[in-house]
């Protein structure tokens, strides 16, 4: 058989077989992956708003209502900070209906992004985060007139986090009505 024709055929066949195999694998794993994403989000949300049984996404990836068994609102969860690369790492903030912070954590990206291993905000210790609990939209660094101690050597990041949190609370405060 003509060599050029054979080349084309073998390439074509390989591509087709590969594409077919992949579409099958994709179809099989897709539902499981969707479920994983939902579970991961709910788990993260549950960690910052323990009083809620379920969550309703109100604004895509930014605002959720926490609902108890009867469907009544127990609080909200807001996401502050920029998404992904550079800049402040996104932070989930759980607020009760009085506008006070009841839970706060770094939101792990659900899409499998790899931020550089083990460094930066993710490795920050609890002492920094604990300072936010009980605060409201006036939260700020000590250097800026508030009560939060910045992480030594990471003032810019700490300030960005504090500012981001305060901003997010203010932005969504109207949702705090039951």
């Amino acid at each position, binding site marked *: 058989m003509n060599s050029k024709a054979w080349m084309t055929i073998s390439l074509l066949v390989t591509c087709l077989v*590969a*594409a077919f195999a*992949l*579409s099958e*694998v*994709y179809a099989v794993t897709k539902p499981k992956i969707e479920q994983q994403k939902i579970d991961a989000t709910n788990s993260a949300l549950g960690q910052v708003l323990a009083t809620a049984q379920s969550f309703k996404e109100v604004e895509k990836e930014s605002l959720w209502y926490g609902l108890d068994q009867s469907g009544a609102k127990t609080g909200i969860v807001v996401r502050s900070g*920029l*998404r*992904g*690369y*550079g*800049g*402040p*790492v996104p932070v989930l903030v759980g607020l009760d209906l009085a506008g006070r912070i009841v839970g706060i954590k770094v939101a792990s990206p659900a*899409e*499998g*992004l790899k931020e*550089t291993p083990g*460094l*930066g*905000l993710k490795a920050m210790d609890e002492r920094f985060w604990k300072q936010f609990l009980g605060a409201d939209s006036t939260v700020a660094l000590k250097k800026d007139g508030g009560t939060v101690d910045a992480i030594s050597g*990471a003032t*810019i*990041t700490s300030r*960005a986090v504090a500012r981001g949190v305060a901003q997010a609370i203010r932005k969504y405060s109207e949702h705090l009505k039951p």
Partner: protein
Amino acid sequence: MNLSKIFIGAFLVNNILLMRFIGLCSFFGVSTSMDTSVGMSAAVVFVTMLATWVCWMLWHALLLPFGLGFLRTAVFILVIAGLVQFVEMFLKKYVRGLYSAMGIYLPLITTNCAILAVTFLNVDYGFNLLQATVYALGVGAGYSLAIILFAAVRERLEDSPISPSFRGYPIAFVGASLISLAFLGFANLFGVSI
């Protein structure tokens, strides 16, 4: 997302070679001489830019709208392989000198993790075309900086008395460790976190 932050991040803070470990095969293989390092850097920057544009457009115009996301790995790497092939043919015909200087390093660019990583990260980070271009430039610049710095170190190492077990790769890695340590000092520069 601030363009200058994207660039600084890719260039220094999250340097692709020294902080993110991507592109190491070529890093250690090519950095034995300054000439090959400079040549490789140029080729990497060039191919990365082209690959970024082609892959970004393919993703947004073809793969995403038609739900063909699962073909991303295959398509992107084939694009890169094709581009390298094309660059090789072009150099062979028009810039013979560079072609023979690069030797086997040219086809090696295909397996350069950094280029594929850039095409993937542009999608994962949700960059628009301009941001992706800046990011690719930053990564290319970061790669060049790291490899040229390292080549300078390695050329000095050649003439230095090194104990037998450490000659060659081992001392090169220790050297890389020190340069990487220096780059760690860029962490949180201009607020870009690592």
